[in-house]
Structures are given as structure tokens and as C-alpha cells.
């Protein structure tokens, strides 16, 4: 057991495993969503259930995009060089998405549906926390990128 080393970055690492797991997860979500959108429920449903169904689809789309950005971040983690401009831009993009998510949910529930349907206070705090964490990570990677560039140009 002592010889087993878990690597976080690079090929055959935990990030690589997470990358493939996320691809499987996203594919399954896309399949489920497409089935829901192509063949919606034909039975007559009460307004609340129908609205929740629509709302869940509305929420799923930005969440899907959020996971796609996460996939891009994991893709960079899979490579050997993680301090890259791509990583910084992906993390910033992820942070922006995290900050936008509560607004999307808020608008979705207040404009299109019943006002009482917004119940994402807990999620909002989590998204904002994740966004702040992502911004901090981006600045760390920015510094790392700068140091690596200087190191590469030291002869």
C-alpha cells in the first residue's frame, strides 16, 4: 500500500479520473435533458408541478455550462503544465458563471414563474463562495504562471 501514490495532476491522475467521470455525468444529463425537451410529459399536470418541471430545465442549462467550464479546468489539470493562460481564463470564466448563477435562478423564478419558487438562498451563498474561491485560485495561478515564465527564461 505504501508504494501507491495518488497524483492530483497529469496523466493517470485523480484529475484525469474526475475528467472522465464528469464527461460521463454530462453526457447522461444531456441525454436526459434532450429526452425531456423532445418528448415532454403529455399528461395534464397541476400548474405548480409543471412550473417546477420547466424551472428545473431552465436551471439545468446554466448548470450544464458551469460543468462544461469545470470540464475545461480539469482538462488543463490533466496536462503536465497547469500554470497556463488557459487555466487562468477558465477559472475567471468559472467565477463569473458562479456569480451569475444565483441571478439566473432569481430571474427564472421571479420573471417566468411564481415568485414563491425562488428557494435558493443556501445555493446562492455556495455559488458566491465558489466564485470567490475561483477568483483567488485564478490569482494564484496567475502568479504561478509569471514565476514559471521567469524560470523558463533563466538560462
Amino acid at each position: 500500500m505504501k508504494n501507491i501514490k495518488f497524483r492530483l495532476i497529469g496523466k493517470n491522475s485523480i484529475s484525469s479520473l474526475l475528467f472522465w467521470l464528469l464527461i460521463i455525468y454530462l453526457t447522461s444529463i444531456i441525454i436526459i435533458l434532450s429526452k425531456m425537451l423532445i418528448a415532454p410529459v403529455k399528461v395534464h399536470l397541476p400548474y405548480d408541478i409543471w412550473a417546477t418541471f420547466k424551472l428545473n430545465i431552465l436551471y439545468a442549462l446554466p448548470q450544464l455550462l458551469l460543468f462544461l467550464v469545470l470540464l475545461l479546468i480539469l482538462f488543463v489539470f490533466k496536462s503536465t503544465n497547469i500554470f497556463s493562460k488557459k487555466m487562468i481564463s477558465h477559472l475567471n470564466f468559472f467565477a463569473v458563471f458562479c456569480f451569475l448563477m444565483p441571478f439566473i435562478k432569481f430571474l427564472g423564478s421571479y420573471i417566468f414563474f411564481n415568485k414563491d419558487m425562488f428557494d435558493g438562498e443556501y445555493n446562492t451563498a455556495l455559488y458566491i463562495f465558489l466564485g470567490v474561491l475561483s477568483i483567488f485560485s485564478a490569482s494564484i495561478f496567475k502568479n504561478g504562471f509569471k514565476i514559471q515564465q521567469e524560470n523558463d527564461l533563466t538560462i
Partner: protein
Amino acid sequence: MAIIVNLDVMLAKRKMKSIELAEIINITPANLSVLKSGKAKAVRFSTLEAICEALDCQPSDILEYVKD
């Protein structure tokens, strides 16, 4: 940049090619090109020592400070 690398001048004086110097001091021609063009951010003492030994010169022959 205020520090100018006069490596190409010294190479011309010693009638040595860049590839030859790169082989002697054991660095890649690409890195030597970076050093020659002044794009390098820093030079290790070991590299400087190897260059001085190969070209039989002083560090001041290779590096020069010019006010901006």
C-alpha cells in the same frame, strides 16, 4: 532592457559558432538564442562560468549595463 548581452560579439571575436558554444556549455541552441537575443530574464552563475571558460573571457565582456 538595461543589461545588454554581447555574446554574439564575443563569438565573432573567437570565431566560434553558436551551436559549438551550445554544445560546449551543454545548453540547447534555443536557450542560447534566447540569451543572445536578450530575452532571458536571468543567467545562472554556472552558465556564465561555462561561457567565460569556453570563450576565455570575463563576465564583463559578455554583459554590459547601459542606462535607459
